[in-house]
Each structure stands twice: as C-alpha cells, then as structure tokens.
C-alpha cells in the first residue's frame, strides 16, 4: 500500500475493516448455524481482501484457499453431519434458561466424585441472564479499548527485521522474501507447522472408527449439481495452478502452502462431489505421502549439518535446489494431509440415548473383566 492514499482507497479500507468486524459479530451472535457457516466463508474472503490491501499477496492466497476454502469446507461438512440429526440449533434461550439448567445439573450431580459443574459456562454465558451478558459485553469493550489504545500509541521504531531480510535475501537462494523467511530464515517454524498438520491428522484419525471413509449419500449427490460441475471445472485448473505456485514461490507470491491448499481444495471438491472414492482407513501409501514432506524436510535439515554445522542450514550453492525440493514435497504432503483431515471428519451416527447415557466401565479404554479375570472388549463403542 503506497503512502499517499486517495479518499477512495481510504473508504475501501474502512469498509473492509468494518465489514470484517461486522461479519465476525454477526457470525458469533446469530442463532442459525448454517448462516454462521456461510458467513464464515464470506469472512475468510473479505479477510483475504484485507491481506491484499495490506500488501500481503502471499497471505491473501493462503487465506482464500485455506482460511475460507478448506476451513469453510470443514465447517460445512461438519454442519451437515450435525444438522441431519437436528443438533445444529443452539439451545433455546427462553426454554432452557441457564439458571434452569444449573438446577438440573446440581440435581444430577449424584454420580461419584464430581466437582460442581460450571453449568452456566457450559451452556454459554451469552444464553444466560441479562446482567451477565451485559457485564461480558462491558468487559469485552474494555479489553478492546485497552488493546486499541496500545495499538494507537505504538513506539515509532524504524523497521529492523525487514531491513535485515532484504540485506540477506541474496544468500537465501530465492528472491521472494516471504519464501526466504518461510524456508530459510525461519524454516524451523515451517517444519513444525507441518508437524502441527500431521498431529492434527493423527488426532482426527484417532477420534473414530467406522467413519474414516467419507462416502456421500447418493441422494445428497443429486442435490448438488453445482458442486459437481464446479469440481469438474476447477480441479484440473487447480492442479496446473499448484505446480505453477510452487515454482513461482521462489520469486513471487506463491509457495508450498498455497499450492498444497489449492491441491487440497481440489481434492476436497472431488470428495465432496463424490467424484473421488473413499480414502480407505489405514492405507499405508497415503500415510506415507502425508508424512513424506515432514520427513524429507527433516532429512534435508539434518543431512546438511555435517557441512554447515547447524540444523536447517543449506550448504552454499544448494539453497535454491533444496528449497524447491522441500517445497514440492511439502505441497504434496500438505494437500494429502488436508484432504485426510476433511475426509476424517467423523460421521454422526444415529444417537442412541441408551449409549449416550452409559459410561462403559471404570477402565478408560472400555475394557471389562469377567469374573475369571479375562478381558472382555467393549462391543458397544461408537456403534
């Protein structure tokens, strides 16, 4: 963003900023989950517009693809799962007032060893009595005001880090400063960020049996001709664009994450439209592909240690090649992990009230023992 601003630009920025706050407020306070989900995607797109206005095209790409795209798809899928069981509606404020719930929970506290439950927190203070909501609003305003006051009076320090980045850019092997930071100066963070993705994948995979394969119902498929047509159109384009993004990332906006997100978006569309088959649970090649990026990143970082003496330092002359290699593998792995995250969203099976009431046993893993000391596996886990 240049220094001299026209009133028009100023107005645009003010509108975008206000729209962001307004959307966030509407999403958080609406009682319609579908509206919230759709507006959340709109929020992500508006935010990527803000990134463009802030001069961060790299971030804008990632926000659109990941923040709006993949996260939005995750929310929509999860919403569908929930809505089909009629669980998407928040508790009605009039009928289940927080104080009433509090009474219920104190009566139901007979089971052993339970501490008093913060029932109001569970139901949500925003569904509570007026005085609580008002004080929460006041506290929120006070904190916002405090942070805002700090932001308005920041020390006017000359930039130091970006100058250093510029000064050392030539030694990094790439000319896009953001890629230089991501894959050279602060490559360690990027490596761990990939680890976060893998952890999330393991964790989501550990949640449920039975629902690993996400196959859409045929009836739902018919309802979405738009999705179908869209995916046929978008997916091939996304593949080409991803290759381009990895390559361009070294000197312009782009890189592994945007490319991976784009590929993942394409994959998610394929799955959502029912055009891609279910990813079978525990398929070894897929898991290998998902962790390959992390593994190769570590291997590159550690492999050059005998020459450079520190982790993640590329030997001089090899920077460009190694960064491109890491980026290409990362893009692929990120795409696979993101698709896995999406595919692994657990289905909400028919909620059996009897099952919902029973805690299997005192054993956290649900193992029972018979009188002769043998282990009985718990058959009714998440039918």
């Amino acid at each position: 963003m240049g220094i001299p601003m026209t009133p028009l630009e100023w107005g645009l920025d003010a509108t975008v900023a206000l729209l962001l706050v307004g959307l966030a407020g509407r999403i958080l306070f609406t009682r319609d989950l579908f509206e919230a989900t759709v507006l959340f995607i709109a929020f992500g797109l508006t935010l990527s517009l803000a990134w463009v206005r802030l001069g961060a095209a790299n971030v804008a790409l990632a926000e659109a693809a990941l923040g709006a795209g993949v996260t939005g798809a995750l929310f929509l899928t999860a919403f569908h799962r929930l809505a089909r069981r009629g669980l998407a509606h928040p508790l009605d404020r009039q009928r289940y007032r927080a104080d009433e719930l509090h009474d219920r929970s104190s009566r139901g506290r007979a089971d052993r060893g339970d501490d008093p439950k913060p029932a109001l927190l569970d139901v949500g203070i925003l569904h509570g009595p007026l005085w609580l909501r008002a004080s929460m609003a006041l506290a929120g305003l006070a904190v916002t005001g405090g942070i805002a006051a700090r932001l308005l009076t920041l020390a006017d320090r000359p930039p130091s880090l970006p100058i250093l980045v510029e000064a050392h850019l030539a030694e990094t092997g790439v000319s896009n400063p953001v890629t230089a930071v991501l894959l050279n100066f602060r490559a360690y963070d990027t490596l761990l960020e990939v680890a976060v993705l893998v952890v999330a994948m393991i964790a989501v995979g550990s949640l449920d049996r039975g629902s690993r394969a996400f196959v859409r119902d045929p009836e739902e498929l018919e309802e979405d001709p738009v999705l179908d047509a869209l995916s046929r159109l978008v997916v091939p384009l996304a593949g080409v664009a991803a290759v381009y993004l990895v390559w361009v990332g070294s000197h312009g906006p782009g890189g592994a994450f945007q490319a991976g997100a784009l590929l993942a978006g394409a994959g998610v569309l394929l799955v959502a439209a029912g055009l891609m088959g279910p990813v079978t649970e525990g398929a070894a090649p897929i898991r290998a592909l998902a962790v390959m990026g992390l593994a190769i990143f570590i291997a590159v970082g550690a492999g050059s240690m005998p020459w450079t003496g520190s982790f993640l330092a590329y030997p001089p002359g090899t920077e460009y090649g190694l960064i491109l290699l890491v980026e290409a593998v990362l893009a692929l792995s990120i795409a696979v992990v993101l698709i896995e995250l999406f595919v692994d969203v657990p289905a909400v099976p028919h909620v059996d009230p009897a099952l919902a009431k029973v805690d299997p046993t005192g054993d956290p893993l649900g193992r029972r023992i018979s009188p002769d000391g043998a282990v009985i596996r718990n058959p009714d886990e998440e039918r």
Partner: protein
Amino acid sequence: MTPLTLYALAGAGIFVLGLVGTLGRGHLFWKVLGVNFMGSGAFLILMAASPRLPGGEADPVPQAMVLTGIVVAVSATALALGMALRVAVRTGRPYLSEDLPTKTPEPVEESDVESSPDRPPKDRAGGEESTAH
C-alpha cells in the same frame, strides 16, 4: 489514522469478539468459530501493526508468521470439529455439559428451516443406517 491502524483496530475487535464467542457460546461449533476469530484478529494485528519498510511494503516476517498461523488454525479447526462431532455422538448434544436436556428443541422459526438445510431428521430417516457404520 492510517488504514493500517484501521486494520489493526479491527483485529483487536475481532480478537475480543472471538474470545467472547469462545467463552460465551455454549454450542461447540460457535466455540470453534470463536477460536478462529481470535486467530484472525491476532494475525491482523501482527500484519497491520508491524513496522513498515520505507517504501511502505509489508514486512515479510509477519507475512510468513501469518501464513504459518493460518495453517495451524486449519489443523486446530479440523481437530476441534472432529471432537465436537464426537461429543455430539456420545452425549447427544454438541455441548460441553453432560447434564443438558437431551430433548431436541423445536426449530425456532419457519424461515430458519427454509433458509437452511437444517431440517428435522425425520425426512432423512432412511439415510441414518448407511452412515452408522
């Protein structure tokens, strides 16, 4: 006030809104949304309040951090939504309390039902068994 400050202030507002949503809404999906907003707010502050280069270009370091943050947020959202659905499976409600009434409240308004695919489960009863495995 420059537009930069404007975005930073919006970031502060969004962060606090997210915090209020996370603490104040009981429905788990809104809590997940709230955490996402806290992240977006912090990212906006990170980008908009960081010192600019003399030419006015954005500092690449916060850009890289926000990129990292977005990826982390997606991972966390995926896990949180997965867990929320699991809570819904095991307690019959996407709430954190075990003691909420298990009865499904009636849909609030007619218009709500039409504007969203959140229809009562009865017309989908046939599909239930297929997802149960």
